[in-house]
């Protein structure tokens, strides 16, 4: 029972850690190319996130299943081949069923092959862990990445076009255009944010905001460490004083 709960909390950790604390894009800074390249609209970003999650989950599970069969010398080429297979599957599926998404993402679907996160999870996690853990880790990373690029896209689409459009890429949904910065003939959008330069600005500002929190956390940790050292020193000094007093007392007794 106890081991069961430990295992369960470990599973939960594997899934939740990459979403928030070790987000592949915002904290580890991996997979930056598609994060800047396809985030002009929210729908493209969501589509990219879903395709990315599919490739990551598929390749992680397969790598984890084959981890005892693949010889160590040809590990990396074998991983790349597995990933490329899943990317080809995703490419063909999206071309057949979501042609708008396929043309919107363009060459970035093929570039999933060289995405550092996918190869990184295979090398760092899936080849050492069981199937269930690898699946959860891949899902967590996929969802974390999806949320990260969607938030960049949200900022860029609202600021860049003044509206959010649904149904242009996922054509099975009804087409909805939400006007957010555009109303009654007033247009508050800044087209720069839809351009490449805007992507760098949004990403830079997000990183700076995250920097505030990591700095605060680091300061807190440093303060806690200092306090712990001080407390240890105090305890040591007290113990020394007690020892001294004891020996002095003993000496005094002997004198008597």
């Amino acid at each position, binding site marked *: 029972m106890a081991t069961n709960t430990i295992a369960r909390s470990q599973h939960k950790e594997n899934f939740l850690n990459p979403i928030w604390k070790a987000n592949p894009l915002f904290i580890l*800074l*991996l997979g*930056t*190319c*598609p994060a*800047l*390249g396809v985030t002009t609209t929210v729908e493209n970003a969501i589509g990219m996130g879903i395709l990315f999650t599919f490739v990551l989950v598929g390749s992680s599970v397969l790598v984890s299943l084959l981890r005892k069969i693949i010889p160590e010398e040809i590990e990396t*080429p074998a991983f*790349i*081949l597995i990933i*490329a*297979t899943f*990317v*080809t599957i995703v*490419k*063909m599926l999206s071309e057949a069923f979501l042609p708008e998404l396929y043309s919107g993402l363009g*060459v970035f679907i*093929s*570039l999933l*092959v*060289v*995405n*550092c996160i996918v*190869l990184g999870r295979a090398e760092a996690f899936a080849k050492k862990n069981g199937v269930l853990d690898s699946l959860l880790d891949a899902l967590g990373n996929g969802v974390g990445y999806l949320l990260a690029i969607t938030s960049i896209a949200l900022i860029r689409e609202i600021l860049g076009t003044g509206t959010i459009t649904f149904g242009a890429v996922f054509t099975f949904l009804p087409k909805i255009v939400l006007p957010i910065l555009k109303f009654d003939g007033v247009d508050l959008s800044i087209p*720069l944010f839809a*351009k*490449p*330069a*805007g*992507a*760098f*600005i949004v*990403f*830079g*500002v997000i*990183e*700076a*905001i995250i*920097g*505030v929190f990591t*700095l605060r956390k680091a300061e807190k940790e440093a303060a806690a460490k200092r306090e712990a050292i001080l407390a240890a020193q105090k305890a040591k000094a007290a113990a020394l004083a007690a020892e001294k007093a004891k020996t002095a007392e003993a000496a005094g007794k002997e004198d008597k």
Partner: protein
Amino acid sequence: MSATNVVTAFILAVFSYMLINNVVLTRFYGICPYLGVSTKVKSSVGMGVAVVFVICLAALVCYPIYHFVLIPAGLGFLDTIVYILVIASLVQLVGLFIKKYSPSLYKSLGIYLPLITTNCAVLGVVQENNALDFGMSMANALGTSLGFLVMIVLFSTIRERLNAYDAPKNWKGLPIALITAAIMAMAIMGLTGMIA
């Protein structure tokens, strides 16, 4: 088209791919090395030269593979898998070749070679070339890789100075570098439409 026309078209295409459709700042390939290897001028020059070398070679090798092997065999959909294997083995081969014939060059370029396999610029250019003819795909390879070299060297010179600049603590390092990249991208935007 006469010979001079072809040459002018080629040169214009190279400049267009190099500056106007710059690889990192407008097409977003190869952001990882652009942000990761640009802290020192020396290493950015090494990375840039290695990328020029590998992209040109990969484009030269992959063009005949796609047009004379995959397409006649009806296997066009296998392009990504074939390209990544070709690029990975090409990088390995170039590494061995340089190690044997020029150990000093290997010392300065060698460490960047394995990183290039996972540089999206290489695969991106080769994939784009599927739709281009031979001359244009060579122009794309040459222009794109030179554009990468120019931008990463410029960026690293700026970053070396930024280190000495007293930025707010949470902006230090990557955030301020990203804003710098944004300003560089705006400068590149000013060239839009210069070459039709």
